[in-house]
């Protein structure tokens, strides 16, 4: 089967391509990439044509931090609904965090996730295995078995590895498998009972705060350990300006540390929690304008390696409750592109760099042969119009959950088509 995507602006940072190109897909692989109009007619005779005029054609986005809740919390999301949400957001590959029930800390859970993913067949699902058994922070999980069964990294996400000795051993042992340890950086002693950033808003609302120092101290500790242990540290969802600075210093010293930021941490502040809006309750919490400025600087100068959504769907029953009792998290996949493009509008980064943060860079960190439009590679492609304006309406999300503080936001940048291995997994019905 042949598909021709023609007339679009192809942005493929992995191959340093940016320009007017046509792409021919054959049997799920990239067959040819050539300047617009240059693929010979004989080759494209029977091809199904997608007209990408006025659009950007890029490798399908790769989100290395999502929660699909299966197994265990299928009322919030399943691998199927999460995959549909990913496809609608332009993502062709996602890495799913292990805080399911049961926890993905062994081969049987990893295999279950992969078999559900195969059955669904929408996007590529890469499991992340737990650092510690049951996410309990007590004993290391069998990291070798997890890698052999398909995991691409280790994390206790949602919970930090508090025990410094255990984190040291995790970094050491994971070296054998050359996979990153992903830390949710939070010193729990400082955030006990907290539900939002500690600051002026938490003080006014009478809510227990989570001080930014809880993140900074953990990032500092892990970087200190890394210097001793080697291994690879990936700092999840960085939200603190101070933590960005720590990562910058560590990189300057040549330490193998990388980090990601979620779109909500550069588009929203603690002010969003006023009126006790539980859709603005997340962990790490929304911080301040000052943090956002420092995060943007980190994105601009490359300290922050990738954008990941921390897609964390929650049912109304978990969100339509007292702020103290609400779950942490936000549906992220279907708003990631327009929120990232705000960085382009603000001239923090170029459009090419925005695509790079969502494609080539995550695949580089996680050793995935994805995020590229190279000839012979899997034809995972997103086609989006960066200029199309629309209003965010969580009710229209493909995700099973609708917890988003972006309801009613006027944004630009709409996904029109998502292809995975040449197969269309999402098409905007207006396109």
């Amino acid at each position, binding site marked *: 089967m042949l598909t021709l995507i023609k007339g679009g602006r192809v942005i493929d940072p992995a191959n340093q391509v940016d320009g007017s190109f046509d792409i021919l897909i054959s049997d799920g692989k990239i067959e040819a990439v050539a300047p617009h109009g240059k693929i010979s007619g004989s080759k494209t005779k029977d091809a199904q044509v997608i007209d990408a005029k006025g659009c950007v054609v890029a490798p399908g986005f790769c989100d290395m931090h999502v929660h699909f809740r299966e197994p265990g919390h299928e009322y919030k999301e399943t691998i199927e609904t999460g995959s549909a949400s990913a496809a609608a957001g332009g993502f062709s590959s996602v890495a799913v965090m292990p805080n399911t029930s049961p926890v993905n800390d062994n081969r049987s859970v990893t295999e279950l996730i992969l078999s559900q993913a195969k059955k669904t067949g929408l996007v590529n699902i890469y499991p992340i295995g737990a650092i510690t058994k049951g996410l309990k922070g007590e004993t290391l999980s069998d990291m070798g078995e997890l890698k052999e069964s398909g995991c691409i990294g280790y994390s206790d996400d949602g919970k930090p590895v508090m025990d410094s000795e255990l984190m040291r051993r995790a970094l050491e042992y994971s070296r054998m498998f050359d996979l990153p340890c992903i830390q949710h950086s939070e010193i729990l002693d400082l955030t006990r009972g907290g539900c939002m950033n*500690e*600051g*002026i808003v*938490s*003080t*006014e*609302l*009478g*809510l*227990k*705060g989570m001080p930014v120092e809880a993140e900074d101290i953990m990032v500092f500790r892990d970087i200190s350990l890394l210097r001793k242990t080697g291994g690879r540290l990936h700092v999840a969802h960085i939200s603190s300006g101070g933590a960005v600075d720590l990562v910058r210093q560590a990189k300057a010293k040549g330490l193998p540390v990388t980090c990601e930021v979620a779109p909500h941490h550069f588009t929203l502040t603690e002010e969003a929690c006023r*009126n*006790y809006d539980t859709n603005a309750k997340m962990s790490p919490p929304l911080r301040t304008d000052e943090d956002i400025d420092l995060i943007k600087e980190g994105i601009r100068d490359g300290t922050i390696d990738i954008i990941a959504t921390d897609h964390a769907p929650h049912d109304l*029953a978990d969100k*339509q*409750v*007292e*702020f*103290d*009792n609400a779950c942490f998290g936000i549906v992220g996949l279907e708003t990631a592109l327009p929120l990232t493009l705000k960085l382009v509008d603000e001239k923090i980064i170029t459009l090419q760099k925005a695509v790079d943060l969502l494609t080539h860079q995550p695949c580089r960190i996680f050793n995935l042969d994805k995020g590229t439009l190279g000839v012979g590679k899997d034809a995972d492609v997103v086609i989006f119009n960066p200029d199309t304006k629309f209003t965010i309406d969580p009710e229209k999300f493909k995700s099973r959950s609708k917890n988003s503080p972006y309801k009613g936001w006027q944004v630009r940048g709409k996904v029109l088509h998502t292809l995975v291995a040449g197969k269309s997994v999402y098409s905007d019905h207006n396109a």
Partner: protein
Amino acid sequence: MLLSTKNILGTKELTKQDIQQILDTADSFKEISTRAIKKVPTLRGKTIINLFFEPSTRTRTSFEIAGKRLSADVINISGSTSSTVKGENLIDTARNLEAMNPDILVVRHQCSGAPALLSQFVDCPIINGGDGSHEHPSQALLDLLTIRSQKGDLEGLKVAIVGDISHSRVARSNIKAMQTMGMKVCVVGPPPLIPPEFESLGVEVSHNLREAVKDVDVVMVLRIQLERQNQGLLSSLREYSNYFCLTSESLAKARDDVLIIHPGPVNRGVEIALDVMESPRSLILNQVTSGVAIRMALFYLLLGENNANPN
């Protein structure tokens, strides 16, 4: 004239005019409580539900008496008797109660923001009877009424609030209401109980009780929760008392006509000495009396134009 707000969720939402009107109305209701027959028919046929998820004697009783003096039917539901112990969600509980057509819900809840959440799901007016560390508006209003009845005018008065400011809904409600009324506020306590953010609320912060009370008109003493000691916020109650217990000695530099108030219940000898508590400067029992009048005023004003004349 009606209040500018449908619910009483906090003093933050009240205008100066609202507060004045509530205090004036409360003043006019005070007399009812001194009659031999302490009841007027003003709210006959109205139903008030006190929904209390946190233990309370004083506040709940005060709301109950206020409703009954106005002839409303008052129903008390406490956290332990409500369906929440069976796992019913707060919103479901409130919706079920609303289906019985109450005219006002008074809500006390351990979570900050719970009354605000409820107000999105029920139609009847809600009075916040205290939520977490957020607000306790009727307490602040009764404090203002108590102070006004002694001083005549609130404008320009200076108040020191002493104690656990960080966890106090009484402090937050008072700070906002007092600022609205043109009063100056100084908060006094050890640094772990006063986060630095309070300064950005426009209040003075002091860690020295003797100095802080020097030129104030009112000292408001807050209850110290015994569990703060276990949370590492206090070394011991004994040490706290050494620095922050209001005694005749710590009041040495204070003005002779300084007023002492306390929202209760009092830990005698911990945050306030017995002799200070029982001195003529102490208005602690006046506050309780003001409380009934304030809550009568809130009920009356929220039920608005459907009411008969207050007398």
